């Protein structure tokens, strides 16, 4: 858990080798974390469902890699990746997913509500678009309190169906709030391709409010990271909100139980993205090509993460459930 709770370096150090290797490790963490979540589900050791982030790692890691620990993020039902990318501890996340006392929310939140104020994660949210107000409000605080923190609002393209998102983008632009809207266009909302639910242009939705939009390849962490750094710079300088539109893909179903997917997308399409557009493989390739790291070094990271994940799962499985008396605690502060 060496990195747990630690934020990545500041943007200006982002080009350093350690930073890139840290981001590579973070992507590995997310990938392997999710694979174990799926295992836990399939082996009926995890209550409820989970929405896996596998395939989208470069977005969360690329963006959070441009943030400080005291910056805020809000997340979604598909939130494990954002949570890890912002610096959360693997073992405490597993504990939360299993409803254990040691979890980030004492088991009261679960997969769709993990929050970790220590790393500035204001929480996953089970209401699509529901966190847009929260992120914008956090940006409002940053400005009102005279802090140079920024707030990042992660959401899927499906959230562009929610009116709330337009209401807060208007205010963020009006008041030059330091918020970055990161739209993860993984091309599907549940079991429907976004072109069947979204008219016109996604990026124009934000541009209409005078918010600068950058469209990036969500599988290329360098592209995502560079765009995020620009947006963060703009936000810290008090110049207002930005909108990043990242095209990406989710490898698994909408949720862990979504096995039969052929009626809404083809095996070929899924195979193509895994084979040609995998963000971790792509990053590994250029790290090697640019001589930032050797295959052996990357393999070492992978296996270190593997051990960390295993330890995290074991920790969570062995951890006790909350005491029944917890049920009535923390309804009110």
């Amino acid at each position, binding site marked *: 858990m060496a990195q747990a709770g630690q934020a990545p370096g500041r943007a200006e150090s982002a080009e350093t080798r350690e930073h890139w290797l840290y981001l590579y490790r973070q992507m590995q963490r997310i990938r392997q974390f999710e694979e174990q979540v799926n295992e836990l589900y399939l082996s009926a050791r995890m209550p409820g469902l989970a929405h896996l982030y596998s395939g989208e790692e470069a977005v969360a890691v690329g963006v959070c890699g441009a943030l400080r620990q005291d910056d805020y993020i809000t997340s979604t039902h598909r939130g494990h990746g954002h949570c890890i990318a912002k610096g959360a501890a693997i073992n405490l996340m597993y504990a939360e997913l299993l*409803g254990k006392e040691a979890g980030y929310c004492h088991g*009261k939140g*679960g997969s769709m509500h993990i929050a970790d104020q220590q790393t500035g994660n204001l929480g996953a949210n089970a209401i699509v678009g529901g966190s847009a107000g929260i992120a914008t409000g956090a940006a409002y605080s940053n400005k009102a309190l005279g802090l140079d923190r920024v707030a990042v609002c992660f959401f899927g393209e*499906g959230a562009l169906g929610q009116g709330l998102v337009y209401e807060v983008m208007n205010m963020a632009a009006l008041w030059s709030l330091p918020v970055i809207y990161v739209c993860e266009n993984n091309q599907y*909302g549940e*079991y*429907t391709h976004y072109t069947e639910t979204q008219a016109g242009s996604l990026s124009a939705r934000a541009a209409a409010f005078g918010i600068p939009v950058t469209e990036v390849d969500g599988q290329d962490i360098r592209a995502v990271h560079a765009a995020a750094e620009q947006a963060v710079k703009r936000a810290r300088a008090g110049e207002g909100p930005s909108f990043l539109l990242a095209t990406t893909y989710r490898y698994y179903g909408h949720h862990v139980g979504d096995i039969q997917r052929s009626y*809404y997308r083809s095996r070929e399409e899924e195979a193509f993205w895994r084979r040609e557009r995998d963000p971790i493989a792509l990053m590994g390739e250029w790290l090697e090509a640019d001589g930032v790291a050797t295959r052996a070094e990357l393999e070492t990271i992978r296996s270190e993460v593997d051990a960390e994940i295993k330890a995290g799962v074991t920790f969570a499985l062995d951890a006790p*459930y909350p005491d029944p008396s917890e*049920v009535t605690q923390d309804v009110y502060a």
Partner: protein
Amino acid sequence: MSTPSLTSASATGTAATREITLSQAIREALAEELRRDPTVFVIGEDVAEAGTPFKVLSGLVEEFGKTRIVDSPISEAGITGIGVGAAMTGMRPVVDIMFGDFLGIVMDQIANQAAKVHYMSGGKLKVPMVIRTTLGATRRSAAQHSQSLHAWVSHIPGLKVALPSTPYDAKGLLKSAIRDENPVVIFEDKMMYTLKGPVPEEEYTIPFGVADVKRVGEDITLVATSSMVQVALAAAEQLQSVGVSAEVIDPRTTYPLDKDALINSAIKTSRAIVIDEGYERYGVTAEFAAVIADGAFYYLDAPVKRMGAMDVPVPFSPVLEDLTVPTPERVTELAKTLCGRV
């Protein structure tokens, strides 16, 4: 916490009756009404090919096509508003709101628009619309996907609210809802979709405002809704073994409410517990209890007791979540106390 093995107490015995799940009953109701009336259409998120995440609508798009089983963006307020406008102009929309928890997003369209158009227009416009949504916890779905918010809509004049507890009731109430000239919100318990029960082959509807006696008894009345009917029936079984005869009454619609049925049963038994999965505070149990305590005042041997969901956001952890919902054991304990059997 509903027990699929138990079967509905209703509609047993007719020759042409077979057992189907609550999910199948809903699909049949929709299919029959879609066939009967070309102005009926279903709109919601992933209602077509996917047949909703609960697979309740599977197969409908194959028969009725994408113009009558309409996949929408994730815009609950928008599709509800479109439903209101469509209903005002000749259609009979069935708007699918996946989780009852999302009612918060559509309350303005339901309560300020749909519910009031008929009255505000002096009776000239009407809104024959159905909102199909869900309720119920214990699915490990946490605080934003487990609520039972029917008290909100039950509070609003102009709305009707149905809460089926069996496949038989689900089919009959949904068909009545679709044929009703007013906005109707119908809540389905997500945990009960697999509950099986007898449903006649021949067509039928169930009138609103008529409670159903799910079990006849003499010593205590258990008024229960939706998911809690199975809980009450299970409690009644347990009570039987200790010599307490419990009557189980399901109002089936919170509005119109069959007050007489509730009051008369309480008058007969002299004791009542009202059970509902909504939050207890300012919830549906308060209305039921107030109605009975008033109407049966001179016949009650004990105060009317309420059992709603615990007044906490629904926690994720199974060990906590299971504490928040009434169980047969807790109903039985309370009933025994009221009947002086302890």
